């Protein structure tokens, strides 16, 4: 399990005068779900495109499966891009057969049937893509990424556009693939999904690495936060550095010397407290803090 699937060293890329990736290094080991995080425009898609040799880096070195990039390695990688679409005028079968053929899949129709069954779209096999809903098309795109049983899956926002049932279905498929020893790189803004699914994460901001490691390691570097469920109007509270308020639920970051008991007393005076809990900060809080403080 310690086999390195991806080893990125000192990756740098600029467009015109804008530095998009700045001396970025990380590695992904076999069989892990690796979260690639960052705000919009941070450089996530650029990293993925460089890994797949769609664009070239200015400097740095990438090794995939222990080798320098080679076109044949593309057959071991499944990719769901963020900017995605399908041929609208052909059938699901024709479209998937074309993608499978490009990945050198033999007897592709059996595999197409297997995956269409798995995502519940077997009955749509001979339907034209243009007749499918957005969610269904999203699942067809995922099938296109899985069809050749890749060793490494790179999925850019795989849950966007899916309802909760389909989100669960995709998450279950990803976990099954992980159990089979596949490596998954997940680029998403859905922090709750990352928190529940990813073993390790890399967070980048403005092309630089800002967080890197396992979730536990990262969270241990941040102070516990207060979670409050309440009724009323929270307003400003003395001793609280920052409030992430959702209306009935809030995450509070306390100032250095503040006693949580004091905060509880103050809260009881101004709102009806239904839950009060000290917990490790969520990835969402960490993400916001890191990006805002950058």
């Amino acid at each position, binding site marked *: 399990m310690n086999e390195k699937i991806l080893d990125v060293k000192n990756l740098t890329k600029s467009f*015109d005068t804008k530095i998009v990736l700045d001396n970025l290094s990380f590695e992904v080991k076999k069989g892990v779900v690796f979260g690639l995080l960052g705000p919009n425009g941070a450089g996530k898609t650029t990293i993925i*495109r460089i890994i*797949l*040799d*769609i*664009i*070239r880096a200015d400097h740095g070195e990438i090794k995939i499966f222990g080798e320098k990039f080679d*076109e044949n390695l*593309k*057959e071991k*990688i499944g*990719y769901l*891009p963020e*900017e*995605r*679409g*399908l*041929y*609208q005028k*052909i059938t699901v079968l024709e479209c998937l057969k*074309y*993608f499978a*053929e*490009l*990945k*050198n899949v033999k007897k592709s129709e059996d595999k197409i049937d297997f995956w269409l069954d798995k995502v519940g779209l077997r009955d749509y096999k001979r339907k034209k893509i243009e007749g499918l809903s957005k969610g269904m098309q999203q699942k067809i*795109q995922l099938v*296109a990424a899985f069809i050749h049983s890749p060793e490494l899956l790179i999925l850019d926002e795989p849950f966007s556009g899916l309802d909760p049932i389909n989100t669960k279905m995709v998450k279950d498929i990803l976990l099954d693939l992980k159990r089979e020893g596949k490596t998954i790189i997940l680029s998403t803004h859905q922090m709750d999904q990352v928190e529940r699914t990813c073993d390790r994460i890399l967070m980048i901001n403005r092309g630089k690495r800002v967080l890197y490691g396992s979730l536990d390691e990262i969270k241990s570097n941040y102070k516990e936060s207060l979670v409050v469920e309440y009724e009323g109007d929270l307003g400003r509270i003395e001793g609280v550095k920052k409030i992430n308020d959702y209306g009935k639920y809030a995450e509070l970051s306390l100032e250095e010397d503040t006693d949580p008991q004091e905060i509880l007393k103050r809260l009881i005076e101004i709102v009806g407290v239904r839950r009060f809990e000290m917990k490790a900060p969520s990835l969402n809080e960490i993400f916001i803090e890191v990006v805002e403080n950058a």
Partner: protein
Amino acid sequence: MRKTFIVAKHEFLATVKTKGFIFSLILPLLILLLMVFAMGFIPQMTSETPHNIGFVDETGMLQTSENFIKFGDFGNAKKALLENEINSFFVLPANYFETGKISVYSKGGFFSSRPTSSIEAFLMDNLLRESNLDETLKERIKEPANEEVITLNEKGEVEEKSGVGFLIPYALGILLMIAIMSSSQYLMQGIVAEKENKTVEILLSSLSANELLSGKILGFGSAGLLQVLVWICSVGIILFLSPFASLFQGIQISWILILAIVYFILGYLLFAGSMACVAAPASTVRDAQQGAMIFTMLAILPMILLSIIVKAPNSVIAKVLTYIPYTTSVTTLMRIALVEVPIYEIAASLSILVISVLIMTKLSAKIFRTGILMYGKKMKMKDIFRYLRE
């Protein structure tokens, strides 16, 4: 290479199955069939019926013939016309010899024809009868030139060409231009469509940009070649079976056809590369078409200057167009069909084309690779130079 063929097969099948492509195969053939029908049968349908022409002669010169009916006055002739006994009539006024003027009366309508040539022949017969000229001279006046056009090559030798040989350069030029332009237009639309439906990044995760571009060029080019071959074969069969088959006998077109295919392939590769350069960075088909305007103009330039090329195939303009990569395919082929073009000129034209294709292939591969993932940005010249540096 395997992936290039997979892409080529996909694009070829996707193109030839479209209604637009099938329509483009059938429509020119329907037009040709219609033209053959029109040239073969309409003259018979609209031919004049001389026995239905009446005349009122105020000079007393005309003699009734079996085809022309004499009327004593204008009123009777008019009555006969209105009652459809005759199709038309003419009045030869008393001062005809001084003025040469006659009045021709006919009923209007879509299918009515003016019997001018029949009347002229009838008047000529009567005028010559009145003269004292020798019979042989009379025949020569009736038919002064029974032409046989003989073309000489640069060495002064007689070139054997059929009477309709002049049609070949027009047909070849137009066919070649349409085939090159339609194939490269298909390519351009195919590239932009893949950008618009956002499948391009999925494809690039399976094969390289070069393989994708080569596959597309091969696929759309094969569709274009199929179009040319279907047109040429169908035109050949239609003309062979038509009443004009004898007119085309003796035309040596086999080597022109081989050259036509070579020029199609090279010309297509050049235009395809150029179209890929403008299509890859474009976000919509409209943007790409704006960028492709300059190439489209260059492609149709030989057709705009067609009359000059046909009239003077060795003129400076025709020679200059022979040495411009974008115009050489159509121009050289038209010139070859018209005159004996020196081998060194054909060799120079082909060399220029091959070099241009090689340069354009490199250029388009670079621009395609970078431009294909560019969304929502208008292409500028400085961007192109940047792609070339990357």
